[in-house]
């Protein structure tokens, strides 16, 4: 979230799209209801289903699964064509006035951007960039009239997304679209704020990153980024999914969003040069220029005293992503399981995850696990992954336990209440929680399991030697209780301290690149300072009345509650809306929320408000960071019931990542005519609460929501058993015949959509029956984020 949960109460218009916050974040949704109750804010729900959020919305617009970019493109077009955008904001805070190189174009007939090579199916992205001047800065046309200005290019690009085209692609009526568009774009005036809440409904697509890009473009046009009641808010899923991402639990980056070293970055210097951006505008703060301080301090945290300038602070001990062809090996989830399936992996450690259930394409995951030599699962409950070798689960891939040689260790783990430590929520609040009870039986907390395992491995290396033991024996394991490190001590280490004084670091730039400071994650600096562990702060006063709670826990970055908050004030430093100020220039410094800006840089100096970007301004046009284009363009899901009305030649995302195993078949509309989507219910959390008596009571069985019209066609009665089959597999469940999903008219073609919740499987309380949603979903990946397309695939439906 750029803003936070409480801040939603400041909004005038709330667009819930690509998410069902009432269902999945009911308590966060309370702030939507507060806005509605107290400010008479309007809630717009755009979704294939009339769901719980839609039930309390002011405007509901149905749309076809996976047509969101068309809808957002339509909104961008609406905003631009009706001049419903904040011009001053766009001019000063975005790259709209910057000029793009000659050679950039979009081929409307073919649906591809310049640089497309149809043979290799790849882009030469060199034309997707700014026109630079002699100093390496992007050229600018303040008036935004130059035909190669981002503004004009954007206007042209989205001119195709007329309300009629939106209706043709999405299936909503022109009137429905215009009603929503009128309301959404009403926030372009300085006195109105609009927010967007999205979740997996956007990220679970093969064009998810571009989808969010489109939403960001819309919010920038409307001047909604950085202001109270605005922002682009990813609701996020799990309790600490934000923290896990922040702390580097992803193959492609280390803690603090610093890219993983690659095999061609053979020295620390080379690495730092490659990952540190150069400013693209003279007034850009370019905060990432401090990457060296962040990364060196992280290496010091990892390797302690043994990390010295002489050995590049242990850079060579740190693994690098190997090169593969022109790029690098991809070890993201889908590729990881593909490699496992191919027998390229031997061991697997799994802390509280259930890939058989929660990953896409369960059969492939089961087949992949059966290739392993050994697997360790630390969990609260037995689940489909730890028990994948059980006959009923292996039966889905026609195997028997005797065929599978994987050794499985199922370790009883402590749960949230049985250990302390911090979770980072989607407001980016890092909050400490205290241990309440001991774990049951022999269960142990994960950090003890990790520590014991690591210490035993280290002991073996120390005793017997082995392959490259250096990083293992040199790892900085300084904890007072090495077998169960105190999480308070680890928290201290993540924040980091000055090695010369021993003082905790107070702010980002306290960390240094010379090896005199240590910090596990620069992003979290400030959470554990000389003042103590600030994540434990429980002062719940709200001095501004705007829901900031500045002394409650710690809000990364730098206890800043609203990101990009320089944009909350106009170019003179005066808040756009005096009633909802975020920061303001008082003549000497910025006051209010912790500024996302140089605190003493006067407005006249014109420093760009997006300090983490080398341009210093937000990007409508993304110069090369995304693989399928600098502007987002509507592409169909990989499995689609219709052909893209914009450009049939390139119907779906041309750069989508897919695999070639027998489990990775895609279906065609003639065999699988129904569009299907998956989702979650408020009564359950993923695959955990199927162990809980009360949650099973209030939502006992797997079901499939089917529009009345389709049910009538197929002679399906409510609560009758039905079967859905995709090219990957099939599952059975009870039909829930509903008025809440309507058939849509897409470009003259009637499209039926059905959907079903995840949450059930093979293990758990009550009737599980193997109704595992992901038995039918494909491993189709977004080419930027590598997130799977769980939403918008094709199935057929029949009575059992």
């Amino acid at each position, binding site marked *: 979230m750029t803003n936070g949960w409480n801040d939603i109460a400041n909004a005038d218009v709330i667009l819930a799209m690509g998410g069902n916050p009432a269902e999945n974040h009911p308590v966060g949704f309370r702030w939507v209801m507060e806005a509605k109750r107290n400010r008479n804010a309007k809630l717009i729900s755009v979704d294939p289903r009339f769901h719980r959020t839609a039930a309390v919305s002011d405007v509901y617009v149905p749309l076809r699964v996976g047509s969101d970019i068309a809808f957002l493109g339509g909104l961008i077009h609406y905003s631009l064509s009706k001049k419903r955008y904040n011009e001053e904001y766009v001019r000063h805070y975005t790259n709209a006035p910057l000029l793009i190189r000659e050679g950039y174009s979009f081929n409307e007939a073919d649906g591809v951007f310049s640089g497309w090579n149809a043979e290799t199916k790849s882009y030469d992205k060199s034309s997707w960039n700014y026109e630079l001047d002699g100093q390496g800065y992007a050229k600018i046309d303040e008036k935004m009239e130059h035909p190669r200005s981002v503004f004009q290019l954007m206007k042209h690009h989205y001119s195709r997304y007329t309300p009629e085209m939106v209706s043709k692609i999405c299936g909503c009526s022109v009137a429905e679209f215009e009603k929503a568009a009128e309301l959404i774009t009403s926030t372009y005036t300085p006195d109105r704020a609009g927010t967007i809440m999205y979740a997996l409904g956007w990220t679970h697509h093969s064009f998810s990153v571009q989808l969010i890009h489109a939403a960001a473009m819309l919010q920038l046009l409307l001047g909604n980024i950085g202001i109270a009641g605005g922002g682009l808010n990813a609701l996020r899923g799990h309790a600490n999914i934000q923290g896990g991402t922040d702390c580097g639990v992803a*193959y492609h980056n280390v803690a603090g969003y610093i890219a993983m070293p690659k095999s061609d970055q053979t020295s620390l210097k080379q690495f730092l040069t490659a990952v540190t951006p150069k400013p693209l505008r003279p007034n850009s703060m370019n905060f990432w220029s401090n990457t060296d301080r962040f990364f060196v301090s992280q290496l010091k945290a990892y390797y302690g005293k043994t990390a010295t300038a002489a050995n590049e602070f242990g850079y060579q001990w740190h693994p690098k992503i190997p090169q593969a062809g022109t790029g690098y090996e991809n070890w993201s989830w889908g590729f990881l399981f593909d490699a496992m399936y191919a027998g390229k992996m031997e061991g697997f450690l799994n802390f509280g995850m259930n890939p058989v259930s929660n990953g896409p394409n369960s059969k492939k995951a089961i087949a992949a696990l059966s290739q392993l030599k050994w697997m360790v699962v630390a969990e609260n409950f037995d689940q489909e992954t730890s028990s994948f070798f059980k006959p009923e689960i292996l039966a889905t891939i026609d195997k028997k336990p005797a065929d599978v040689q994987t050794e499985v260790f199922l370790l009883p783990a402590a749960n949230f209440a049985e250990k302390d430590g911090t979770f980072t929520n989607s407001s980016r609040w890092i909050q400490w929680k205290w241990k309440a*009870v001991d774990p049951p039986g022999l269960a142990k907390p994960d*950090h003890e399991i990790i520590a014991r395992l690591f210490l035993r491995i280290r002991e073996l290396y120390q005793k017997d030697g082995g392959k490259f033991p250096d990083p293992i024996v040199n790892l900085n394991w300084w904890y007072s209780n090495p077998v169960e490190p105190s999480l308070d001590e680890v928290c201290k280490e993540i924040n980091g301290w000055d090695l010369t004084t021993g003082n905790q670091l107070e702010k980002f730039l306290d960390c240094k690149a010379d090896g005199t400071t240590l910090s596990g994650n620069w992003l979290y600096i400030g959470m554990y300072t000389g003042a103590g562990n600030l994540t434990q702060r429980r002062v719940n006063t709200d001095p501004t009345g705007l829901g900031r709670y500045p002394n409650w826990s710690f809000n990364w970055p730098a206890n800043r509650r609203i990101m990009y908050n320089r944009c909350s004030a106009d170019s003179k430093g005066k808040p756009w809306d005096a009633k909802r100020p975020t920061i303001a220039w008082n003549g000497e410094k910025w006051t209010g929320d912790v500024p996302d800006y140089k605190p003493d840089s006067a407005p006249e100096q014109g420093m760009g408000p997006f300090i983490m970007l080398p341009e210093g301004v937000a990007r409508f046009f993304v110069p090369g960071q995304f693989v399928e284009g600098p502007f987002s363009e509507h592409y169909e899901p990989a499995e689609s019931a219709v052909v893209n009305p914009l450009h049939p030649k390139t119907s779906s995302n041309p750069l989508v990542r897919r695999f070639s195993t027998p489990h990775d078949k895609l279906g065609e509309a003639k065999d699988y005519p129904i569009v299907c989507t998956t989702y979650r219910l408020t009564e359950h959390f993923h695959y955990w609460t199927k162990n809980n008596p009360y949650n099973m009571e209030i939502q006992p069985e797997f079901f499939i929501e089917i529009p009345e019209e389709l049910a009538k066609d197929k002679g399906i009665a409510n609560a009758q058993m039905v079967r859905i089959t995709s090219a990957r597999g099939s599952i059975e469940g009870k039909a829930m015949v509903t008025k809440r999903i309507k058939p849509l008219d897409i470009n003259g073609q009637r499209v039926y959509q059905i959907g079903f919740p995840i949450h059930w499987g093979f293990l758990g309380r009550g009737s599980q029956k193997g109704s595992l949603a992901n038995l039918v979903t494909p491993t189709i990946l977004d080419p930027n984020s590598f997130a799977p397309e769980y939403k918008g695939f094709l199935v057929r439906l029949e009575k059992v």
Partner: protein
Amino acid sequence: MNATRRDFLRIGAAGAAALGFDLAPARAEARALKIARTTETRSTCPYCSVSCGVIVHTAGDKARNAKPFVVHVEGDPDHPINQGSLCSKGIALKNNIVNDRRLTKVLYRAPGTDKFEERTWDWAIDRIAHLFKETRDRTFREKDSQGRTINALTSIGVIGGCTDANEINYLMSKTFRAGLGVVPIEQQSRI
């Protein structure tokens, strides 16, 4: 007989007054507040990322001889986001802590079998450490195809942490990536 019946009625008519009612038990005996003297611990809901504050009520006043068990979990009214409220999952958190399906033993599945057997922690940690080392030593990639140092381990994957504390996530990447060289480290945010 007549007299009897009349007496009968007379008693009846006078009954309420004569016998009266013990009104004390007429109080619907409001159950004593079950959290009146429990120990309250502030925690955070482990489900979604709204991160509602919860109060875990445990029996016992932390006396050494009392083994705390969870009596009740409800929302923390001081928490700025949830202000005491919780969803249907959060309010059922006691189910997550006190649950007969919780794992309490170290389990091991031997190759080719269809069930778990019980093992000790020491045995399991030792066995996993040996397997890890054996796999690592055999498959570790010190150099890439062009001879550049990569020191990467790609034959072992590590996933998890989406409901573990930041500190544990950090320890995971520190130990497995920086220490043991594992590259395929992933978590829920990808999917």
